[in-house]
């Protein structure tokens, strides 16, 4: 076990990892380098409750400041790592200080993909959302704008549309792919959210690219590929995130849309680990890069165990959630590549869930206002058990029985 762990990036991964190392008795040095000026915080509320003003900054912090000092975690905020020198095992900081490490963890997250400058991306009031400071300035902008264009109908874009509408703005969402949520959910779920947004007065344009953003200085609108011009005084670009891998690339580590690691979250350098949004894990089933809190926590715990000398393999257990117009959806698994779906819906439509199968195996569940379906789905996916599709499609069948049947029997 090395005597000094240095973590680059002060977000979800590093807060979990540092706490876990201490909880498991690691007594060497821990230094966390973070380029934002805030204590590590949760990002999900940035496009939900926090942006609506329903949650305070202090509630976003993953731990209070005192936690780090008490646990002797050297948390350096406003501090950017600019290079890794793997030969001598040091991290170079802006300002030229160097910090030696025995284990280095890359937890640099990802950055919002921006709109091309040549297509109007540098106009004022064209924004992205990744950090709390983005959210704070967006919050002000939302309170003075009248109409907003959201580019991209993924979860973050749709959550932002919902917040903006709640705040009274006229909202248009433009999605270049054939439909909203195209990469992350099936048609049934997309239809549900399309209907929901339209019912709240939001215009959704699908299968339509944007030729360019218009305006002189400040954004005034967007010209679509069919020539239509949509006027707006604020644009939010929600077209995905790019893993922050510059340090790893410059250090010569293997990178492929994410810092590549083995199933123990170890990079191509044996004392450098990567976890969270920036990491792509290679497992026997293929390689995977996820952007979610649950994944960041799982990988951080894997790295902690392995730095402590363990041999813990990471097993993806993707899950996600979203809230739009007061509707809650929990998602278990990944639906990409499904070849069949089963829809389960109460007669009044208040709850519904979409169950995704690939070659007869359950791979994902989108559960709308239905925690039972989420939990049952998660257990069934984990267990790999055969799933009775007819039973699932029948809303009066009690899912709790199904999920319980997969729990190990407790013998007395």
């Amino acid at each position: 076990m090395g005597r000094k762990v240095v973590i680059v990036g002060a977000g979800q991964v590093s807060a979990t990892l540092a706490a876990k190392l201490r909880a498991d008795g690691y007594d060497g040095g821990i230094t966390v380098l973070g380029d934002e000026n805030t204590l590590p915080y949760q990002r999900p509320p940035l496009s939900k409750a926090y942006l609506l003003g329903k949650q305070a900054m202090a509630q976003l912090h993953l731990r209070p400041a005192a936690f780090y000092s008490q646990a002797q975690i050297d948390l350096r905020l406003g501090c950017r790592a600019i290079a890794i020198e793997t030969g001598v095992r040091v991290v170079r900081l802006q300002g030229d200080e160097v910090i030696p490490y025995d284990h280095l963890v890359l937890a640099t997250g990802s950055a919002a993909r921006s709109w091309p400058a040549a297509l109007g991306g540098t106009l004022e009031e064209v924004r992205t959302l990744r950090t709390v400071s983005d959210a704070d300035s967006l919050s002000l902008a939302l309170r003075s704008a009248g109409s907003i264009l959201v580019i991209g109908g993924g979860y973050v874009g749709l959550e932002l549309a919902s917040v903006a509408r709640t705040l009274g703005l006229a909202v248009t969402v433009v999605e270049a792919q054939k439909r909203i949520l195209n990469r992350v959910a099936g048609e049934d779920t997309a239809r549900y959210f399309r209907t929901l947004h339209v019912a709240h007065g939001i215009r959704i344009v699908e299968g339509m690219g944007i030729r360019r953003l218009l305006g002189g200085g400040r954004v005034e609108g967007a010209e679509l590929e069919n020539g239509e011009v949509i006027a707006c005084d604020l644009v939010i670009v929600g077209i995905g995130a790019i893993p922050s891998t510059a340090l790893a690339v410059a250090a010569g580590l293997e990178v492929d849309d994410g810092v590549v690691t083995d199933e123990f979250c170890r990079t191509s350098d044996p004392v450098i680990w990567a976890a969270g949004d920036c990491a792509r894990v290679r497992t026997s089933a293929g390689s995977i890069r996820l952007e979610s809190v649950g994944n960041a926590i799982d990988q951080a715990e894997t790295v902690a165990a392995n730095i402590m000398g363990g041999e813990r393999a990471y097993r993806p257990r993707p899950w996600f959630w979203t809230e739009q117009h007061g509707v809650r959806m929990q998602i278990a698994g990944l639906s990409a590549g499904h070849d069949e779906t089963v829809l389960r819906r109460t007669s009044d439509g208040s709850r519904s869930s979409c169950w995704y199968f690939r070659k007869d195996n359950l791979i994902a569940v989108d559960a709308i206002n239905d925690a039972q379906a989420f939990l049952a789905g998660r257990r069934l996916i984990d267990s790999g058990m055969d799933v009775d599709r007819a039973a699932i499609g029948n809303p009066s069948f009690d899912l709790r029985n199904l999920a319980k049947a997969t729990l190990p029997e407790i013998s007395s």
Partner: protein
Amino acid sequence: MIQVHFTTQDGSVTSAVGTDGESVMEIARNNGVHGIVAECGGAAMCATCHVYVSPGWLARIPPVSEFEDELLEGTGAPRMENSRLGCQIKLNDTLDGLEVTVPASQY
């Protein structure tokens, strides 16, 4: 100031103070109480903030909502009659001295 006593798995008790409106999950997190994960940060989505409330205190806490009730079926440690999601218990003066036990695992 409202005090909450957390009994963790090794039997030790951590006492922490919070303020009106804070949740039991937030107090645990802010005071380094081990064993509460809170993946969703209090959005009632993850069921990894499970606690057992000392029976004497149960009656003073507003009853479980339908959503919490369903989510409690998905806790890692067995659900008991006194199981609650820590993020759904908001503190107020009548809960000063509240005692909860943190389960062995949240998964």
